């Protein structure tokens, strides 16, 4: 890279833009664009496990593989049906159906944009080759044409169903049913646009489970961040002095912070276990809980367990941040206060807290955002249970997105998470003020 720079030298600011570019491109591609995409997906009936809805489309498309395959069987079944209704009063209607469908089919196979593509796919289907290339498999067809085609199929379906119900001849009934079933398959290969606007939002914003997940998330966030702050501040105040064994304290503080949340969740699920868990056992002995199994099998017990595990893991980290803030407060302030006769509590109230304000707010911002998106801890420790009583919005979104494979509806919950986090950030940044970034801009 050094050689390249020697040949065409960039001036300082050009180099600057080149240097920030990779980071900005990555951030745009992997965070900003996906958020936009989640918004977009949330307005579609988009399910990974349903072949007719596994992409987002604003216009009609045709699944050519399915269409070519079914058209072959449809032709066979409609011919059989014509043979069996020959000479009866049904014949003209059936022949008319055949003519209409064939007309639509001809339009597809001779149309400018689909003819070649159809020929290739048809050939592959006849040779029993799967069509894996989506660009080949799906073709676009005009909305008007598809709607007419679907109307024609539906009209034919109505007629055939009518005959099916009237006829008493069993063989004829089977022939009608076969032909009609193939028509239904043709219909399904015409993929409707799955844009549904805000319907998904309507569903989730009126659903009790969403609100209970939101309540669980808010409750968890407020309670655990509150205890982390209070205990963390107390610990920071106490250890803000010279003493022997700082290294041991630092290690004790850092190890819970450094291990994966999923691993600590596994550890706590053992400690809380109703039969072998030591914490559950001691709590029962001490009379905190009526039975050792309460901690994981009741809603409030499980919520308490999650909060305790979270406070254990992140309170030390909070203490560390606050201790660093405490150490920047000048000693002379306290000495002056003592001369003026201020007591310990007054010193804390009028010196420590105001001087620590920005450190506290920054620590609170990051902890609140972190707690609000809680996933691993709950997913591993309780799985959201019992009976969804500890399910956070992230856990619920994960269930809808990946367990139900419903990317449209799950994206609604993703968007709700994004908006909530944006709101929390805006409130905190207003409180902290713009000085958070001012000092990062460099002195120029």
């Amino acid at each position: 890279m050094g050689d390249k720079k020697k040949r065409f030298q960039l001036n300082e600011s050009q180099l600057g833009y080149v240097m920030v570019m990779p980071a900005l491109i990555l951030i745009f591609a992997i965070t900003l664009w996906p958020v936009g995409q989640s918004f977009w997906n949330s307005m579609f009936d988009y399910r990974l496990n349903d072949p007719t809805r596994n992409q987002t489309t604003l216009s009609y498309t045709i699944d050519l593989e399915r269409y070519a395959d079914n058209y072959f069987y449809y032709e066979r079944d409609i011919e059989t049906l014509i043979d069996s209704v020959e000479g009866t009063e049904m014949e003209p209607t059936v022949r008319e159906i055949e003519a209409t469908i064939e007309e639509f089919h001809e339009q597809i196979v001779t149309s400018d944009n689909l003819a070649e593509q159809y020929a290739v796919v048809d050939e592959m289907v006849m040779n029993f080759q799967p069509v894996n290339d989506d660009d080949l498999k799906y073709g676009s067809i005009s909305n008007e044409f598809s709607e007419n085609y679907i109307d024609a199929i539906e009209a034919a379906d109505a007629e055939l169903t009518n005959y099916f119900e009237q006829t008493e001849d069993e063989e004829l009934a089977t022939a009608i049913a076969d032909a009609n079933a193939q028509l239904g398959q043709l219909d399904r290969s015409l993929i409707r646009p799955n844009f549904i606007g805000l319907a998904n939002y309507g569903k989730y914003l009126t659903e009790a489970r969403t609100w209970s997940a939101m309540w669980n998330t808010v409750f968890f966030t407020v309670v655990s961040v509150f205890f982390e702050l209070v205990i963390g501040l107390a610990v920071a105040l106490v250890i803000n002095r010279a003493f022997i064994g700082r290294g041991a304290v630092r290690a004790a503080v850092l190890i819970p912070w450094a291990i994966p949340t999923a691993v600590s969740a596994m550890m706590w699920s053992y400690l809380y276990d109703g039969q072998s868990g030591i914490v559950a056992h001691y709590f029962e002995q001490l009379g905190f809980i009526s039975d050792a199994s309460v901690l994981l099998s009741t809603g409030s017990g499980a919520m308490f367990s999650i909060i305790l595990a979270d406070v254990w893991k992140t309170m030390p980290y909070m203490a560390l941040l606050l201790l660093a803030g405490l150490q920047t407060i000048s000693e002379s302030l306290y000495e002056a206060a003592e001369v003026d006769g201020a007591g310990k509590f007054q010193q804390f109230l009028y010196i420590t807290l105001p001087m620590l304000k920005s450190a506290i707010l920054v620590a609170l911002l990051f902890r609140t955002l972190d707690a609000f998106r809680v996933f691993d801890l709950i997913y591993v420790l309780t799985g959201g249970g019992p009976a969804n009583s500890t399910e956070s919005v992230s856990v619920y979104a994960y269930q809808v997105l990946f367990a139900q494979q419903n990317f449209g509806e799950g994206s609604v919950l993703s968007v709700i998470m994004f908006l909530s986090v944006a709101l929390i950030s805006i409130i905190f940044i207003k409180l902290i003020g713009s000085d958070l970034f001012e000092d990062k801009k460099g002195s120029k």
Partner: protein
Amino acid sequence: MRKKAGIWFYIFLSIFIFVTMFPFLWVFLTSIKPPAEIFNNFNWFTTNPTGQSYLNAIQTRPLFLYMWNSIAVSTLTTVLAISVASLAAYAVTRLPIKFKGTILGIVLAAAMFPQIAIISPIFNLISGLGLRNSYMGLVIPYITISLPLAIWILATFFKKIPYELEESAKLDGATPFQTFRKIIFPLAAPGVFTTAILVFIAAWNEFLFALTINSDDNWRTVPVGLSLYQSQYTIPWGDITAATVLVTIPIVIIVLIFQRRIVAGLTSGSVKE
């Protein structure tokens, strides 16, 4: 440092350390018990310690493979993220570019994005690129999630380097990029190293992307792999505690060796000096 540490202080300190370390202690004590002694038994110490649970832990699931995957993914992430982030942090702190505030604002905003809000499009993207069940499938999202943290901390460190060094390099005829490579980067090495440790730990701990993107057992990382020990009818606490001890050891070693650096890195962004 005006307060003196008295006896009560050390008692408080011992209790604090005991409480934070107790889960690890108990998990370790369980892992060396014979599996039959674990169920419904609250004795602290076993009379006949055994390594049986450790054997079970590495035999029932490919624990060392999970650890290898975690090491590979976290190392790749660290190297790539630090490269990209140090370029950006240098440009933002030392070079005369416009929109510094906007760039840092975007970086900070990206740090706040909840992962659940971006997981499904990234899942589609990674599937589309054919990168599911591969190291790169995780490294690409991990680089991006760790960029804000890395840029933020590196910017703090770069700013502390005196400007005079740059000026004299310029006078000696160095190009801006040479200045960065030969003067600033080596001087910032301790800061870069600190950032690297934090990025490594963040990548090592990530769960949601690892759970969804690398669902094949051969590509799982430690946090996901460990959480699967319990998916049976009876929960093998012996295996789980032994596996926990094994996967925690590398992290404990890193923390013990680099604790001062980690503290410096964690507190550099939040406290103004």
